[in-house]
């Protein structure tokens, strides 16, 4: 595909503004740029067709099956988009007077109230813009809590080795030393390893439950009690909340603060990488440490970004929450778990699950035996799925399972889709045994073959340059 810059024709333009009805003013010459930016020069038809061409080479969850483990790619309802596009939400200035934004405040209050009920928390902020940003906000609650008590010797955050990379990265951004503890063979927290790691220097524990192999940690109450006994606090990474919402609450598991990804669990679209939105909830004793906005609320507080967060994403999530209601929330969780178990059992017998037991909303296939036998790797299988129009599962994660493929079908896939997907996996299993070479070279029908990532990293070309400027590599 041509780049948008390669379609540019000097002198072509869209007429958007029309004539200016005030006299132009001259700013001092020394504040003006030497040359205009080299943005593309296009007619509206060029722009529209360019992006239509691009969108034909993108796979969204509303286009087809997307079992990307730990990302909860559930269907994104159209009504949520329609509501977020209402001028009564879109055209509202964040610094408009309070009386002019009562609708926005009510959206935040309702979403807060529903999500506190679902999570078992007492208070909540929507300021963080994404999951990792929410982790940062949540761990800062823990830090402020210890600081407020003068308990400055607590310098360590405990993270299981099965955790998402954002957990240890977050702890480091909050100035903590990260203590990685090994998981038990079943992927759950190793209680002995936890006991050894806990001490007077423990600020807290970051945990996902169900964990990243898709299992609910049966020892959860014991784990949170052990951390509390050592004087630490417990942080719940809500990445996997979809399995248990309306069934069991993180607040009842003993967690003190939590983040929920509205773009996963509550069906707001992920936009090819964002925007997400994050609700960070906490128990009452941490409420005073929640972030505020300097211009909107009390100054002097901590604040993790401007204004009140990704508000229009919260609007979508509230629309979804209202649609679902008290029955719909647990019904979604039940069916997310059912779909994962059904797909796992349908695939089992060809590719084998890493843990042969009932899973939560996702499961991990372990392809190490298959690879030994056929030479076909998890990567080869993932790339082969693309030729069937299925988005590959998460690959090589969690790191405690070798040749891992992690599948999360979500509740919005029908039995027909799951049966079809299981059939595709069975076909690939057979293909690996009979013609592994063809899988090493997959995909065969995608827009590109496998890209050379080493070259991309060794010779970075991170922007387009006009022809006459020569070499593009940095």
């Amino acid at each position, binding site marked *: 595909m041509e780049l948008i810059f390669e379609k540019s024709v000097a002198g072509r333009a869209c007429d958007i503004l029309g004539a200016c009805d005030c006299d132009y003013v001259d700013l001092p010459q020394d504040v003006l740029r030497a040359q205009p930016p080299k943005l593309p020069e296009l007619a509206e038809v060029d722009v529209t067709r360019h*992006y239509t061409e691009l969108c034909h080479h993108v796979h969204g969850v509303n286009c087809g099956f997307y079992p990307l483990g730990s990302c909860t790619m559930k269907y994104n309802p159209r009504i949520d988009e329609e509501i977020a596009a209402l001028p009564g939400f879109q055209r509202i200035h964040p610094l408009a007077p309070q009386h002019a934004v009562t609708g926005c405040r009510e959206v935040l209050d309702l979403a807060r109230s529903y999500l506190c009920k679902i999570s078992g928390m007492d208070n909540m902020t929507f300021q963080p813009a994404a999951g990792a*940003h929410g982790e940062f906000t949540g761990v800062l609650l823990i830090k402020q809590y210890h600081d407020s008590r003068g308990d400055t010797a607590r310098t360590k955050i405990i993270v299981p080795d099965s955790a998402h990379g954002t957990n240890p990265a977050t702890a480091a951004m909050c100035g903590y030393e990260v203590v990685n503890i090994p998981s038990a063979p079943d992927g759950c927290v190793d209680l002995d390893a936890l006991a050894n790691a806990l001490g007077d220097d423990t600020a807290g524990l970051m945990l996902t439950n169900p964990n990243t192999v898709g299992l609910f940690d049966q020892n959860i109450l014991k784990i949170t009690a052990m951390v509390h006994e050592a004087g630490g606090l417990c942080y719940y990474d809500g990445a996997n909340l979809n399995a248990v919402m309306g069934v069991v609450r993180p607040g009842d598991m003993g967690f003190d603060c939590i983040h929920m990804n509205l773009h996963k669990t509550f069906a707001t679209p992920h936009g090819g990488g964002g*925007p997400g939105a994050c609700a960070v909830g906490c128990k009452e004793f941490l409420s005073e440490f929640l972030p505020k906005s300097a211009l909107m609320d009390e100054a002097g507080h901590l604040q993790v970004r401007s204004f009140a967060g990704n508000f229009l994403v919260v609007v979508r999530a509230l629309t979804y929450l209202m649609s679902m209601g008290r029955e719909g929330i647990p019904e979604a969780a039940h069916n997310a778990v059912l779909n994962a178990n059904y797909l796992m059992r349908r695939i089992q017998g060809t590719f084998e699950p890493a843990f042969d037991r009932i899973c939560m909303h996702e499961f991990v296939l372990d392809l190490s035996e298959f690879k030994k036998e056929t030479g076909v790797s998890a990567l080869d299988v993932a790339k082969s799925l693309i030729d069937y129009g299925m988005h590959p599962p998460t690959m090589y994660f969690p790191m405690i399972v070798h040749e891992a493929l992690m599948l999360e079908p979500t509740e919005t896939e029908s039995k027909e889709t799951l049966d079809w997907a299981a059939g595709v996996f069975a076909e690939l299993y057979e293909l690996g045994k009979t013609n592994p070479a063809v899988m090493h070279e997959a995909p065969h029908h995608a827009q590109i073959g496998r890209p050379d990532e080493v070259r991309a990293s060794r010779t970075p070309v991170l922007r387009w340059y006009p022809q006459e400027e020569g070499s593009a590599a940095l």
Partner: protein
Amino acid sequence: MSYVPSTEAQRKEMLAAVGVSDYRELYADVPQQMLLTEPLDIPPGMGELEVSRAMNALANKNVQYTTILRGAGAYDHYIPAAVRSIPAKEEFLTAYTPYQAEMSQGVLQSIFEYQTMICELTGMDVSNASVYDGATAAAEAAAMCRDRKRSVTLVSAAAHPDVINTIRTYCYGTGDEMRVIPAKDGHTDLDALREMLGSDVSCVYIQQPNFYGLLEDATAIGEAVHEAGALYVIGANPISLGILKTPRECGADIAVGEGQPLGLPLGFGGPYLGFMAATTKLMRKLPGRIVGETVDTAGNRAYVLSLQAREQHIRREKASSNICSNEALCALTASVYMAVMGPQGLAEVARQCTAKAHYLAEKLTAIDGIDLVYPGAFFHEFVTTLPRQNEVLSALETAGILGGLPLDEGVLWCVTEKASRDDLDRAVSIVKEVLA
């Protein structure tokens, strides 16, 4: 409504295939005393029509002004129709991060094009795929500059208060220090800055145009910063870069900013867009996703997520940042905006904003008791004194006009291309009437 497509009969069939008779058996690992026994204390679900009614009612409780003369970090620019419709395509809207390049070339190419446009706008060499907003972009930029010897961040008091607070919060996280450079006459105090530039200073952050709308002497500030061996970060308004000197031309090592003016709605504060661009030298310190060009097995041009060795999923606690999700769809929106406007269109937005802001400033300051608070050139915002401030602002509101933002020293006005001369004349006559 739970959006679950399986019928009751199918669910039963699937439960049987799994070997359980009931949903409850799927949750056998959950300590049974923790299971919720009562339904959630939230309202029952609703049909789409009912939800639409309820959410429309909430939207209708907000006041929509016909003219918005308030900015302060969120700007009411015209959003062309194509900029609304293109990013709403379901493919772009409902994709995840482009981990699988073969299935995501459209998203990857759009990010590569966005990175190029941001480089063109700022004059820098490399851009990332976006961060959350302008405030977090500034905080992440400050983090890029620190090393063992230099860890102090200096931030101009004339920057946006939310940005100052966010940088302070990120510094609190890592235990680093942030100091505020005082403002003098609404501008960063260069003499004070020179005194503060010790050998422990890692970087200096200023905003251009600054929070009061004023143009800083960004080149002189940059020279002082570099003389002291620190790095220079400029937070720029992207619309102003249609005509104003680029951060690179002012000497910046890192350019960041709030991308909301590039086609994103006010939306009560978000989602917005943090853009970040830097010199080649700082490339491997940039946080977040970066898309690079390469070739596929057949030698054809292809795009991938690149330089991932910086990121949390590889480096874990040693990553340059914890960022994972960014604001990709907002970056796409900004790209479509820049493509629709083109170089001439973007310059025209900047010129019309400047023209109209100066028109309003001239008309307002012709009224007795209203004066500019700060001297110096400004872009599309300015601060005036305003007698009987509350009365004036509520009279404007009654007429459907959101007036400037009240500050301690006066009122911060903003005018964009959206306000017509008639709108401005109407606002001025209301102010006159109240003060008569």
